[in-house]
């Protein structure tokens, strides 16, 4: 319920999955044989439809992630890869999705963090385009933490002479 108003959560659930109707449903305005539905419906219709594994978790993606997860363009596959994976995994009953998400995240996490702390802005913008929304949030958090750290270290003079004092001294000189 906490996420009821969450825009990102709604958009995550808008991801289309293909389903197969196991039971008949009447009065629905779409051809049930080629029905597409969003997951939230799927989660409750579990007895009525079976959900196919979405294309973003197919064999190709898995192989790419195994090869070099940091360079896979996950965003074009699904902008909320992890959240969507978590939501869809219990529906499709595929236990390997969990491991896939975990290994992908573990490897990419390191990469995102290093790049966020070191890369210059121009170099980063190219790297940005392959990150999922969740990773971008993380990236921005890392960058802002770095920025505030630098600000703290370089920082303005924390003990400032009161301007009044300075003026006084000048006038006496």
């Amino acid at each position: 319920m906490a996420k009821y108003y969450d825009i990102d959560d709604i958009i995550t659930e808008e991801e289309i999955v293909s389903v197969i109707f196991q039971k008949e449903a009447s009065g629905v305005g779409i051809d049930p044989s080629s029905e597409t539905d969003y997951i939230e419906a799927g989660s409750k219709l579990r007895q009525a439809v079976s959900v196919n594994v979405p294309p973003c978790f197919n064999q190709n993606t898995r192989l790419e992630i195994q090869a070099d997860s940091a360079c896979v363009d996950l965003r074009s596959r699904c902008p909320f890869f992890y959240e969507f994976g978590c939501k869809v995994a219990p529906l499709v009953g595929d236990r390997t999705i969990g491991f896939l998400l975990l290994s992908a995240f573990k490897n990419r996490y390191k990469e995102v963090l290093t790049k966020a702390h070191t890369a210059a802005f121009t170099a980063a913008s190219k790297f940005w385009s392959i990150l999922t929304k969740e990773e971008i949030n993380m990236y921005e958090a890392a960058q802002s933490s770095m920025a505030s750290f630098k600000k703290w270290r370089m920082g303005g003079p924390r003990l400032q002479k009161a301007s009044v004092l300075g003026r006084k001294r000048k006038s006496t000189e």
Partner: protein
Amino acid sequence: MYGRKACQLVKEFAGGEKGQLTPFNSDLFEQVVAECSQHHLELQSLIRKIQEEGLDVQTTRNADHHGALIHHLALVRNKRCLMAYVYNRAEVMQSLLWKIGQVLPQEIEEKLCHSEIEYFKKHSAALRSYMSKVQLDLTVDMVPPKDPYIQVRVLDDIGDGIVLKQFISRAYRLILFYMKNMAWPLILLKTLHLVILDILYKS
């Protein structure tokens, strides 16, 4: 596809810059509401059909039940999208109230729908009454200022005895130091814009 339009609405909001409002899309909003009532009608007719067949609505699991379920879920989904759209816009408006003060600039007000303007007015009235109770202007100086005084320039003839009082009455284009929390409302009122903060103006 069911629920598509409602999500368009949400995506439109998400597409905008963070903390900024997009114009209220009343057209799409109405369409989603219409879609909801359509779902409602179909849901009712399916339920009626089950009842006419003499079956128990609670326990039957036939085609009609599943059809009704789909309509129900689509309805719930649409509702959630609409609620999220309105709720998130309201949150942005609240943060605007703290950032830019009690009076909305024209260009922002154009983006709001009628009830949103009403909401903003009521919210700012509530905040105002609270601030008068504690006798403190809470919206000023969200970040502690270095100096309570700021340099301002009078841009327009402000006439006699408004907020700045006799001090600078009729003082056109005069540069002076002024208490920040006093000058702030005048700076924010761009339409009546009387005074400008030089430092802010440059940045």
